[in-house]
């Protein structure tokens, strides 16, 4: 039996019990004490020390942003979700982006000059968008190189620093061959 799409994806019972959407109408977001982000929600309360987390960090970097805070018991809780950041005033957008910048720290790799294997460790010599040329060491294990989107990879070095290759096919051929010689999965 085919089910109409609307009932599949727009079940009002789920909407009522699901996430709270934050909009410019119901959320006042501003910088407050200690330059921390604050968020006052209409018919709710003022949340202090707010931070933002992307719910789809690979596919949607400007949408589906969860605003969160740490409660009195040191537990992280969600205030609500911003569906479209662009719907908010420019200043709020800036504040949210600033807090997102604090939450994520990844180097984007543009070149892979060499990869060498020694002692079960891969020694990378790479070019990054943010820090220029650098070297890092990564244990040669499947769990240290995970898929990023459909054709990319996230590498975790020995200290869990993160390196992103958005699309392996975009690497120069020699770099790609050097990379896939070791990261073949």
């Amino acid at each position, binding site marked *: 039996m085919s089910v109409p799409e609307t009932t599949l994806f727009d079940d009002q019972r789920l909407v009522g019990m699901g996430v709270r959407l934050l909009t410019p109408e119901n959320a006042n977001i501003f910088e407050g004490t200690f330059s*921390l982000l604050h968020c006052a929600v209409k018919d709710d309360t003022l949340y202090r020390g707010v931070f933002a987390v992307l719910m789809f960090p690979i596919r949607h970097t400007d949408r589906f942003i969860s605003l969160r805070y740490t409660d009195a018991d040191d537990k992280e809780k969600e205030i609500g979700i911003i569906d479209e950041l662009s719907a908010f005033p420019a200043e709020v957008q800036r504040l949210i982006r600033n807090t997102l910048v604090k939450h994520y720290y990844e180097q984007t790799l543009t070149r892979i000059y060499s990869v060498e294997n020694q002692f079960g*460790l891969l020694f990378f010599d790479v070019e990054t968008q943010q820090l220029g040329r650098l070297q890092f060491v990564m244990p040669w294990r499947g769990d240290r190189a995970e898929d990023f989107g459909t054709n990319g990879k996230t590498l975790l070095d020995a200290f869990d620093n993160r390196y992103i290759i958005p699309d392996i096919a975009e690497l120069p051929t020699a770099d790609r061959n050097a990379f896939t010689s*070791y990261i073949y999965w």
Partner: protein
Amino acid sequence: MKRMATGRDAAPASVPNLVFHRLPDAVRDQAEKLGFKDDEMFFGVRGDLDADGSAAEVWTLVAKTRVVSIVVSGARAGAVTGPFELSAIQKARAAQNVGSAFLQLKIDGLYVDMARYSNSHRELFGRVARQIDRQVEGRPLPENALSLPSEMQCVKCGLPLPGRGAECPRCLGGHGIFARTLGLMRPYWVSILLLLTLMVAGVCLDLLPPLLQRTMVDKVLNPPAGTQLLPQHEALRALLLILLGIVGASGGRCLLNIFIGRMTSIIGTRITKELREKLQAKLISLAVDYYNRHSVGSLMSRVLYDVDYFQGFVTQVAQGFLLNVMLVLGIGGMLFYMNWKLALLVLLPVPFVIIGTTFFWRHIYPRYYKVWDSQSKTAQLLSGLLAGIRLVKAFGQEDREQKRFSGAAAYLQDSRRSLETSMATFNPIMGFVFGLGGLIIWYAGGSQVLQAHITLGTLMAFIGYLGMFYGPISALSMFSSWVTGFLSAGQRVFEVLDATVVVTEDPKAVRVPAMQGRIEFQNVTFGYDPYTPVLKNVSLTIEPGQFIGVVGKSGSGKTTLVNLLCRFYDPQEGHILVDGVDVRQMNQQDLHRHMALVLQEPFLFRATIAENIAYGRPDASRLAIMNAARAANAHDFIARRPAAYDTKLGEQGAGLSGGERQRISIARALLCDPKVLILDEATSSVDTESEQEIQKALVKLCKGRTTIAIAHRLSTLKNADHIHVVEDGKIIESGTHEALLTLKGVYHKLVMIQTELTRLEG
């Protein structure tokens, strides 16, 4: 400029990350302006990032009464956070984000970012946060807490360690895979020596026929002009003798081959058997954490398939590589002995061999990895699909799973095709190159025969040797293909063998033949990720024979308590004592012999019901097995089965209901007669009727034993001597059921919620 990510700091590498009892030079002026002095300093710690993630040198200074952060370099150089009085700080924490973290201080209920750092500095800042916390709490600061050697990096050479606290492979002096494999063959050195001797004898026999052929041509069939012909009967006799010599050499070689082949097989199969046993023993000894990082499919593939390459290694040593090297040397020597000029021409293909081998290593070698990966992924997918077949059918996802499997099968096909097509191209080209070398010799040697510089017999012998020479050369060039497969398999096998056993047995471990069952957690702090504690400074005591309930929300740390007690992991701080002995100093077999674990999802092996019940005590009598089953309320349903206790169970107890599986696992625990019984949500996934049956069984099981029961259904803990409520890694309430109800705290709230749920269900 090249930089190591481990030291991506804006500051020079020579600047230490930590200074004690003085102001760091980089911020001295600014700190002094803020009123900080050397004599009031505890320590200063250097971070490598500014708040926006740009590289910067940021110092956080922790003095006796105040904390401040100062940005030294980067776009915000000179910016200051604080100073904050210690009296205003509620706590400190290392807040982990994605790829970096913040040192945060809680002030006025808000966490303020003091310093941002990359994960390379995580270990140091994790310690710093704890240190500030201790200072805030007024607890004494251990002198060496901050300057302890790193568990992540080798203190000597700086190489990142393969695991927390593991040995540095570089400083240990890493052995190559070949060297280690040869090490595996050490116990068989006498046999190997015999093999090598036989091989030398075989090579000598191989060299004999062409020499005899030369004599046959030059002395019997076609003596050079000017030499005396043998009388016919003598020529025939000589011909027969020479042929007999050739037959003798070939027959001897045949016998040697049979002997060598048999010995190789015996040694090879023994080595692979021993290696599989070693791997299995290692896999069992590895911490649970290892299995979180490696899929079962890939580990199975290593034990089952990769180990076969080691048998191939023995074959290569006995019949492949070494034999071919000896043949090349022996035949090469003969060629140079007979005619050095012609012999030099034989070497013409050598550069092509080198080029071919290099090409192979660079372009074909990586394809072996892909084949292995694709096999492993296909196996994983299939294993998951078959294990979850009911779910797939229930959600009607057969087509989708079919497509997913097709994708994996296509990947396997592509990777194999890629490897085999490249091999199919590479091998004939190399063969052609060698063939050309042979033609050169025919031309050059033929010319010399025509000019009577050498005899026809010599050329025939030369050509005979040449045929034998290119064979081993060709095999040696192909040897690289075998080596590549062997190296990748060897790397995967040794990776398991080299994995760090996080939980190790103390060589002086205390034997505990009998256990009372007194358990004590002393200030235990533990996190699966050491920077994110799951248990925080937990202390509790359980007297022998007590029934203890542990309740709390999912993720609160209940099961972690049990994991630590069973020593699946060791705590980062504090001690766990059983009968007054730290479990780290206790013989692990003794510890586990006196404990029994009943899990939420009982694991049953593919064996009979009786074998499953007797898993912990294989020597148990039939009667004892039935007694245990009876006590666990399992006897009746077992008896109703046609094969009763001899019923063979399917994968993970297939063929039994959830409640039946659980009762068998309880019988298994009961048969071991443990002093400490751990019930981890033992009844949470069964229906009410089964739960009642199980509860009845548990009442019998718990008598006279220390029992720790983790439960969501609080009704099952009413009779507990003591109940601990765990929340966010801490024990927040303790007492009897009644006392906790009177307290009207978290436990009371949980009971009320469950009562309400029961009412709604009713």
